[in-house]
């Protein structure tokens, strides 16, 4: 190899390295959340300062990681340079002091442009935390899809065939799906006389489709058509009868694919004044149940049982005439539902969590050996989860989320369908 050809080769490699480095930088820039705000701030700075030199100081008053600051500086310097402002040393007469700040709603980047005794300001707003990627945890990923929004408080919702059944505080409304979206088909007043309790979450039930549909609201019981048809017929009456916890003659897939469990319809007495089931169920399942808020049937490899959330906050599993504690359910609020995802053991529990937060979340759990183990990352619901219910096919969950919608100022209720995909 001659020196000249060697040089050419080195040059080619250098060019290649530069191209690759440039490509990486472009790729990084394209995916960086800081590129656009840096450009916007640089533009405002340039409009104030004009071409020249300035000493750039960056101060971080936000929760942006210090690791990110060099990248932000690089973007700012590059964008200022593109606008004929050269970042210089401390000796410069002009100073650009950029503070990466934030308030509880958003990030705020403030540039103080100091020219002699005069200081002028430029500010830009950024959405807070938008750059955080969602972690993939466990064997499945939960996804939600909004299917209906209303300003009326929704206590429960269920999609049955082409119909959407909404239980509201004073009425049951059936919507039919059409090419134009949901169209109201039937509205039946419940005849509710008592005011709803503050926490109306458990005051409803909607047995799975195919076996009749019903709803209970504070001392009222409503029964719908045995099979969903175009002509819904719903009748409501005052009732303190025990509520149906499990549908009659329902068949659920067990943890083993070939195992089916025949379930006897189970009813539970409900304290409508104080929002909980008393613990008395009929027929008896052999174990003395404590008062509880929520109960779901959970098939297991060795049979099945009733998973319930006691009013003392303890999650218990009743099977074989015994009541056993479930561990790892400390983060659960009182609502949960089963989801037949087909991932991992097959059936998961999806529980709403974090009543402390502004936005609730849903998370799937596996329950081997009576220990709740997270099977998914939390799915943030952008509001308060007020109810969740397993869909008739067990493959999805219907969730009611209370949201405050801006700019309409109105509180809205969104019905979401939550599904799972295996990781």
């Amino acid at each position, binding site marked *: 190899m001659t020196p000249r050809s060697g040089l050419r080769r080195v040059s080619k490699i250098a060019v290649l390295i530069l191209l690759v480095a440039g490509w990486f930088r472009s790729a990084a820039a394209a995916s960086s959340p800081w590129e656009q705000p840096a450009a916007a701030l640089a533009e405002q700075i340039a409009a104030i300062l004009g071409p020249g030199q300035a000493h750039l100081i960056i101060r971080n*008053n936000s929760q942006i990681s210090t690791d990110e600051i060099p990248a932000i500086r690089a973007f700012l310097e590059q964008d200022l340079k593109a606008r004929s402002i050269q970042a210089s040393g401390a000796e410069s007469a002009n100073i650009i002091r950029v503070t990466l700040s934030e308030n509880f709603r958003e990030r705020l980047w403030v540039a103080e442009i100091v020219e002699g005794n005069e200081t002028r300001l430029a500010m830009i707003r950024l959405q807070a935390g938008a750059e955080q990627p969602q972690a993939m945890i466990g064997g499945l990923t939960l996804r939600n899809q909004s299917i209906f929004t209303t300003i009326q408080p929704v206590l429960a919702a269920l999609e049955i065939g082409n119909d959407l059944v909404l239980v509201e505080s004073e009425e049951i409304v059936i919507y039919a799906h059409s090419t134009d979206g949901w169209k109201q088909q039937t509205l039946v007043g419940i005849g509710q006389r008592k*005011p709803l309790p*503050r926490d109306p979450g458990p005051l409803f039930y909607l047995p799975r489709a195919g076996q009749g549909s019903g709803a209970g609201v504070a001392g009222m019981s409503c029964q719908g058509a045995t099979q969903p048809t175009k002509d819904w017929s719903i009748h409501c009456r005052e009732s303190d009868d025990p509520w149906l916890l499990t549908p009659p003659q329902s068949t659920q897939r067990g943890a083993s694919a070939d195992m089916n469990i025949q379930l006897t319809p189970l009813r539970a007495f409900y304290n409508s004044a*104080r929002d909980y089931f008393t613990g008395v169920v009929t027929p008896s399942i052999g174990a003395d149940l404590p008062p509880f808020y929520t109960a779901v049937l959970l098939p297991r490899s060795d049979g099945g049982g009733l998973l319930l959330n006691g009013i003392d906050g303890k999650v218990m599993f009743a099977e074989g005439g015994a009541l056993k504690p479930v561990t790892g359910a400390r983060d659960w*609020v*009182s609502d949960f539902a089963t989801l037949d995802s087909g991932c991992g053991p097959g059936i998961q529990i999806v529980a709403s969590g974090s009543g402390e937060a502004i936005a609730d979340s849903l998370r799937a759990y596996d329950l081997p050996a009576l220990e709740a183990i997270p099977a998914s990352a939390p799915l943030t619901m952008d509001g308060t989860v007020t109810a969740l219910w397993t869909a008739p096919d067990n493959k999805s969950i219907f969730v009611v989320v209370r949201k405050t919608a801006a700019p309409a100022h109105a509180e809205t209720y969104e019905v979401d369908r939550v599904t799972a995909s295996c990781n």
Partner: protein
Amino acid sequence: MLRQVAISCLIAALALPALARTRPHYGGTLRVEVEGDPWQRPGGLARSLVLDGLTTMSPEGTAQPALAVEWKSENDDHRWQFRLRPGVHFHDGTSLNSSGVVASLTAVCGAACPWTAMHAVGSSVVFTSDSPIANLPELLAGDDYRIALAGAGNPETAPIGTGPFQFKGFSNGVITLAANDNCWQGRPFLDAVEMRIHRPIRDQWLDLSVGRADLVEVPAEQMRQAHDQRLTVVASPPALLLALAVSDTGALANPNLRAAIALSVDRSALSNVIFQKQGEITASLLPAEVTGYAFLFPTDRDLGKAHELRGGAAPPLLTLAVEGGAAMQLAAQRIALNLRDAGFNIQVAAAATPQHIDLTLRRFQLESNQPQPALESILRAAGLAVPVPQSTPEELYKIERQVLDTHMLIPLLYLPRAYGVGGRVRDLRLSLDGTPQLANVSLSDAQPEVTP
């Protein structure tokens, strides 16, 4: 700053026995003790339990429906129409209607209301104003504008409202509030709240420690002491602004003297010594958590410049008045020392003193975490009625800068509101202004009532 909020929230979370995450139990009586008058405006705890507003503030800091279900503005925010929630009743059974709302709000602010006129139109209340009120929904969420049944009850000590609790009686220094079974928001979990009033802080803490009280007050300056005594403390983010209101008449008509006063105060000493590092030093009217630009207002003391601005001649004797209790008195004494260091001749007097007041040390409630309504309510409370339109952060900064450059209001510290909480209290949250939201509180030992 946000880290501090996060820590506050963490304290709150740790403080709550919320580990048993379950639906709350109904029943029981919560025993609360307060040092002041729970009916006072703004921020009186009893007011917040008995009376509702047309709107309320969401945790995100936006106005959300309360007694009004929806609203719209017209004519560039000169006209607002609020539609009332149907089916709401006052505690005595009277239906809430638009004329009742007009009567209540007229009784509250009369000619000093932010709007020019107000009319009942069907099931709506219409507000009109000569100047636009961009933040009216947020303003109406303020404590001053809660709705009481006009002409019934005693509006100052036993108002009739639509809130989750209703006044039942007052005896032996204890106000009894009972659950409103027909509350439009749903019955509260508690059966009753007993509120012992005018109880000294020391006695409150003693009662909490021996189980005679469930919720007691913890002044910011005693939060450290409360932690030392192992009280479970729930604290709000910054909720009270401590500021000097400066007269622009008399000796302080000279703006340079007012500027010199602003530069003389040692905020760090106030925070460290008097308020035990529980305050957030500020030279801005709004906390950093709300605006993000508070750092643009320097908080440093500059005695040299203060001397320079004051000039050679010493002004005549200035009077500094104080609103509030012992800690505020101590703070005022400290400020007087600072001002003497800068060459001012100053005496501290009680707020009720008849003589001319040059400076007043005051507390202002942060009523919103949206910057526009928050700033507007502080300015209104300070008697500086400057309209604050919906604006960008730059525009808001300019308005605040303009006000502060007059040096008629000198922000010093932001303080949290805090409470000591007993072990059986569950799900206690504080609203944005630091008021406990007792309607959602339940007691862990409440005995579920048997269904008849």
